[in-house]
């Protein structure tokens, strides 16, 4: 699959186009929950100093 860039909102999983004001506000205190490339719900592990999100198709992201 060709990955062109972010297509989905990582907070709500819907198409990234359009307004996501609440999602943007949530993102400061929430790790991503949906893969930005395919919109799949990710497995997310939050630790005291970091987080790790795993998409079954697009792999890991962390912060």
């Amino acid at each position, binding site marked *: 699959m060709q990955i062109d860039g972010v297509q989905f909102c990582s*907070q*709500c*999983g819907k198409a990234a186009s359009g307004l996501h004001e609440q999602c943007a506000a*949530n993102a*400061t*205190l*929430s*790790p991503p*929950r*949906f893969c930005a490339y395919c919109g799949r*719900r*990710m*497995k*997310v*592990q*939050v*630790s*005291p*100093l*970091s*987080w790790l999100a795993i998409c079954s198709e697009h792999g890991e992201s962390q912060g």
Partner: protein
Amino acid sequence: MSTPEPAEAFLARIREQVLEQGQGLDQADTLTALELDDAWLDDLLALAHDVRMRWCGPTVEVEGIISLKTGGCPEDCHFCSQSGQFASPVRAVWLDIPSLVAAAQETARTGATEFCIVAAVRGPDERLMEQVAQGVRAINDAVDINVSCSLGMLTPEQAGVLAALGVHRYNHNLETARSYFDQVVTTHTWEERWETLRLVASEGMEVCCGGILGLGETLAQRAEFAAQLAELDPAEVPLNFLNPRPGTPFGDLPVMDGKDALRTIAAFRLALPRTLLRFAGGRELTLGDLGAQQGMLGGINAVIVGNYLTTLGRPATADIGMLQELNMPIKALTKTL
């Protein structure tokens, strides 16, 4: 009908009772404190800080928490994104033991002396108890930190196993006042939670029990909750503020007002003069950076640093820096078992 006590006289009376005699406020006086006008907030916070310094001292206990088993919980706690009953974006996931130990190590490096292992369950099954046993042993072998657990409702046997493992403190929040609990949770009762807390104490573990403020409870119910906690007499009371999570029944509730949150912190300190009163989840949203400092100067003497179970917190360095600025030393490690 009697004339209401003027605020100044009320504050002078409770100063004598709580600060000088160390006797916590009862439910009626806690409600009066919660109802004080904004003009008296600074005085209330100052009194709560004096009480904390007098009866607890200047140290602050620092803790990190981690989710060992996230999501997929059968219970319906209306604030929780980990319930399997709601359309929450949180997916079920288990943490492996090496990652658990690594998280304990990074938590200890912040200066924290407490590490709490949490699981989103009604109560632990055999698999979870085995995972917890392995995790506690592995952490104790590798990291100098006290381990506590929060695994839901326990059987007497499970409480005994955790105590024997060296779990020094067990968290089980009552969450809210008894009179409001059935508006928050319907899959189990407040009394079932109380029974687990009784078991924890009977096994010699320290009791950690608090709740979440801003669930729609009234001020009278907040005062009721403080009185119920005072009756329980826990070693620690974590205070969370609702962070409305998408997909949960409480997802559209408003964020608690910052002044109400500060007044509640002070009132709980005055009801519980000797307990560890811990800043927990939601404070970033409700209070922000300035409010966090005001809370530390208004009765709080313990913090969760870094992230929470499914949401993110302030950077641990920000909280540690704040404690240094406030001249509040981090409590040193003392192994209690």
